[in-house]
């Protein structure tokens, strides 16, 4: 499928889920869809449908109430897929680190590929992050490394045994 994977970097479809962040990142995602930054230049669309999405854009520190929804969304997305954690909350919970209802970052629930720093990251940072994610996505599909390289712990965490 080498021919097809050539084009994959030009059409990343995004699924966005807020797992308990402060909205700041979500505002910036909307701003990135807006005319000034216009992320559709890279072919990116906000699909809102896990079955047709390639990049899962997670904002927020993952509260305990959101955890299962996030896991389900990740599993519903067809391979190959990339997870981007946006903002400081996505990396270890940010300012909400070690609060009682917080899971301390996206990486404790699903494997993350790209972290975008900032609170909140501005649209330029988001574009940088998407570009980085596309690179990793391309590599992933070339290596066919799907979920095989997940650690056993992670697979158990996700609640799946095979694939």
């Amino acid at each position, binding site marked *: 499928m080498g021919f097809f994977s050539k084009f994959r970097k030009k059409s990343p479809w995004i699924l966005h889920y807020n797992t308990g962040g402060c909205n700041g990142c979500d505002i910036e995602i909307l701003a990135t869809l807006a005319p000034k930054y216009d992320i559709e230049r890279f072919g990116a669309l906000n699909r809102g449908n896990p079955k047709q999405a390639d990049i899962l854009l997670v904002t927020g520190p993952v509260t305990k109430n959101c955890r299962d*929804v996030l896991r389900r969304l990740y599993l519903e997305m067809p391979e190959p897929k990339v997870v981007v954690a946006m903002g400081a909350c996505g990396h270890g919970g940010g300012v909400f680190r070690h609060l009682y209802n917080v899971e301390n970052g996206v990486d404790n629930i699903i494997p993350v590929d790209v972290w975008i720093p900032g609170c909140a990251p501005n649209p330029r940072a988001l574009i940088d992050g998407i570009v980085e994610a596309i690179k990793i996505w391309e590599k992933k599909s070339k290596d066919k490394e799907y979920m095989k390289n997940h650690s056993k712990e992670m697979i158990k965490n996700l609640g799946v045994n095979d694939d």
Partner: protein
Amino acid sequence: MGNKIVVPFGSQHIALPEPVSFLFDTKNEIITNVKVDVGYVHRGIEKAAITKFEFTNVSYLLTRICGFCSITHAGGYHHGIEKLLDVEAPKRAEYIRLIITELDRIHSHLLANAHVAEVAGYENLFMQGVKDREIVMDLLENITGNRIQYDIYTIGGVRRDISKETAEYIKKQLLKLKDKVLKVYDFYDTDYTFGLKTKGISYISLDDAKKYNVVGPIARASGLATDARAEFDYLPYDEVGFEIQTRTEGDVWARNIVRQMEVIHSIDLILRAIDNLPEGDIKVKYKGRPKGETFVRVEAPRGECFYYLKGNGTKVLERVRVRVPTYSNIPILKELFVGEKYSDAQPIVLSFDPCMSCTAR
């Protein structure tokens, strides 16, 4: 189409920027019953504010309750803590606070209005509305150094000053913005299909608004003139000539129009504030530890935000209670759906401009 279909709306949905779940029972796409779950975003900030953080930097946590109204939370907290510490911010700091607060209100309202247009299927109106918002975002980035979390409040003043050149720049940009906002206001006001989609939807009468204690633009769209800026003294709003904007229609459309009117009024307020910007310090030193209790009401973009602070003379506060606008608007939102079409549910939710991260904290 006579069968009952249960339609979930959230917690992940393209029309929702935040997780909140509505479960609609529909019959012929008419909603007959609704279940709401608002607890997805609960992080436990009130607990952290009284255990993990000292009173000097708890505001960094509290501003991150919500990205839209971050400056309001900072305001609510700092006005309270300044009362407890018995310090008074200098006049110039108060004016700078006012400018940032109103700029924040402008960007929040513009986005909220545009989002209503977007979920009504009016993509172009969304783009036109959000296009102008970038001017405000640039201003905020220039003044505070960040686009969303400004962190400009500090106990006894502000962290950054507005220089003369910046003041001129703000003035120039805001005058430019005003023309554009008026143009978009015209679209919201006169657009036929947008009116079809929004007029008469989810009507709240003045009596209901009072009974359910509705706050913010939603209340003002029903003719209830409530606004913490007028009902509570916290920033020099009297000096810049604040007036409450109201409509009487009480539907989705009126909420949009009220927000747009407030945007225009906010621009006027900022222009006046910049003209009267007093000279002097931007920060005063404070001493001691917070002791006693205080009640603060501040006006967030979505309505009145209430803070209760209690200190006991130590570094860590004893109780921080945050009551946010959406928290008091959810009860009436829940009542509104029954009898409306499913296709109108999204504009109704978004016209409330719900802020779940505030509500659940």
